[in-house]
């Protein structure tokens, strides 16, 4: 095993806990938690537990301070020094639903929402619901046969009726990186706001969210090596100040009375009720830890591994890769079919080789429809994966397709 990877793996408790063979290639569904996130979570829950935002005793004061430091760390990971642009959520799905609700006042009959064919259900269904609720039209930008967004076609669908464009930064099926900056410029040109589903981008290293030219950016902690239960949404400062709240409850108000309630300023306006404090602290710790990695090296290794995976799959007779065969503008997520075998059977059989993959529609049925299939197997990489993981998958597939087809 690559010695850098060996060292990285030590930062992930799961590898000491699960006996080999253990080839975890289901990172796009949930990644493993890093040590610093696990420790932040466990320390808070068992040794530092108190509610945040109002308490003054030392335990509560420390919890509140740690909570706000997590906000600062997450902001730093997104390249911004304004923590008030970060609102904590329970995950990407919640963030996108929040977006669809707080932007609803801009929707209505005669207005339109534009999404793409490659979206995860979490970036489709909230907009379908918003369209139904408000009478807005839902437009869909198509992808090509490799699953790449046809940006020209998207631009052609943009006119001044479009109030919101919602798009994934990286596809959870093909790993394709969408040219969000170009989409953002086109959206701005017609006065539309851009919402980005960053679930599959954030695990692959820090970036500058403001440079993307988007307005809201949602993601999940559990996919970026933190805990389940927390995520965040970045909302451009000037926009956040104007937006109404989504959920009502404690901590998001300025004053409540039956004569009328006024709301707190961002980010608190978007954080109703007791937050997922432990998972938020884990998210902050993960962001801090991730910022210490050398991402050039990590990205280079991921690219090499992705290429090895793609080449290996292409060399197997019964495999059909969904999406591009090359590594241009993509991250390490590869979906494929095994001719004559159901995706769930393949995943189950791969488990016999200690290989963890995901089978199914990957919450992207429209994209599956586009590929003319119902279900596929997906392998997705993280910095702790190495050649042995990819090779175990390829060997397993070879045996399975020989024996079970």
């Amino acid at each position, binding site marked *: 095993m690559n010695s850098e990877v060996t060292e990285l793996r030590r930062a992930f408790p799961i590898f000491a806990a699960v006996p080999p063979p253990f080839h975890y290639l289901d990172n796009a569904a949930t990644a493993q938690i890093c040590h610093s996130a696990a420790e932040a979570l466990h320390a808070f829950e068992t040794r530092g537990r108190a509610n945040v935002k109002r308490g003054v005793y030392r335990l509560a004061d420390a919890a509140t301070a740690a909570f706000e430091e997590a906000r600062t760390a997450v902001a730093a990971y997104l390249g911004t020094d304004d923590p008030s642009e970060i609102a904590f959520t329970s995950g990407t799905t919640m963030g996108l639903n929040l977006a669809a609700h707080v932007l609803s006042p801009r929707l209505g009959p005669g207005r339109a929402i534009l999404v793409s064919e490659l979206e995860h259900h979490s970036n489709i269904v909230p907009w379908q619901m918003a369209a139904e609720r408000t009478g807005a039209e839902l437009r869909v930008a198509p992808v090509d046969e490799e699953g790449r967004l046809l940006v020209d076609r998207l631009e052609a669908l943009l006119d001044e009726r479009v109030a919101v464009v919602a798009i994934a930064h990286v596809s959870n099926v093909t790993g394709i990186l969408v040219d969000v900056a170009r989409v953002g410029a086109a959206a701005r040109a017609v006065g539309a706001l851009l919402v980005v589903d960053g679930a599959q981008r954030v695990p692959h290293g820090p970036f500058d969210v403001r440079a993307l030219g988007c307005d809201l950016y949602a993601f999940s902690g559990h996919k970026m090596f933190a805990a389940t239960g927390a995520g965040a949404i970045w909302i451009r400062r000037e926009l956040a100040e104007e937006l109404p709240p989504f959920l009502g409850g404690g901590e998001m108000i300025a004053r409540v009375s039956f004569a009328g309630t006024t709301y707190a300023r961002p980010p608190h306006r978007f954080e109703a009720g007791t937050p997922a404090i432990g998972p938020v602290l884990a998210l902050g710790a993960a962001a801090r830890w991730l910022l210490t990695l050398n991402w050039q090296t990590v990205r280079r290794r991921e690219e090499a591994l992705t290429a090895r995976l793609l080449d290996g799959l292409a060399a197997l007779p019964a495999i059909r890769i969904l999406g591009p065969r090359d590594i241009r503008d993509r991250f390490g997520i590869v979906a494929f079919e095994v001719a004559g075998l*159901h995706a*769930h059977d393949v995943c189950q059989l791969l488990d016999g080789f200690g290989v963890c993959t995901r089978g*199914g529609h990957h919450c992207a049925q429209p994209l599956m429809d586009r590929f003319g299939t119902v*279900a596929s197997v997906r392998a997705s990489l993280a910095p702790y994966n190495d050649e042995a993981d990819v090779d175990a998958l390829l060997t397993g597939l070879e045996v399975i397709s020989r024996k*079970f087809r």
Partner: protein
Amino acid sequence: MTAADLYNDRILALARSRTGAGQLEGPCVRVSRDNPLCGDRISLDLRLEGGRIVGLAHRTRGCLLTEAAAALVAQLALGMTPGEAQALVRHVQDLLAGRPCASTPGELRVFAPVAAVKSRHDCVLLPFAALAEAAASANA
């Protein structure tokens, strides 16, 4: 439980047998069911005469476990009363819950290794549930 237990030769043979694949001609009860988690689907035709099942056919799109279960349904159901056919699904449920009862038909025990894999229970259950639904409506 290992993958080899789950995909044992008897299950594979059942799945490959495609017993009952097709559709019935003439009047019959037809039900369709799908498994929302994986999109698998069965469409099952049933014909009763004199209170017994005399014809059964299915179109199944599913994993090996679903295909095997559909084939077994087609094998077992012929000649049964609707009540007996409906009882099968409960026997399978008990088997998957790890508590088969003495009266569980021996043929069903081929699915015993699936008990250990909760996420695949629905794969096995789908054809049996379709049979139960068809039998209930044929009886009504």
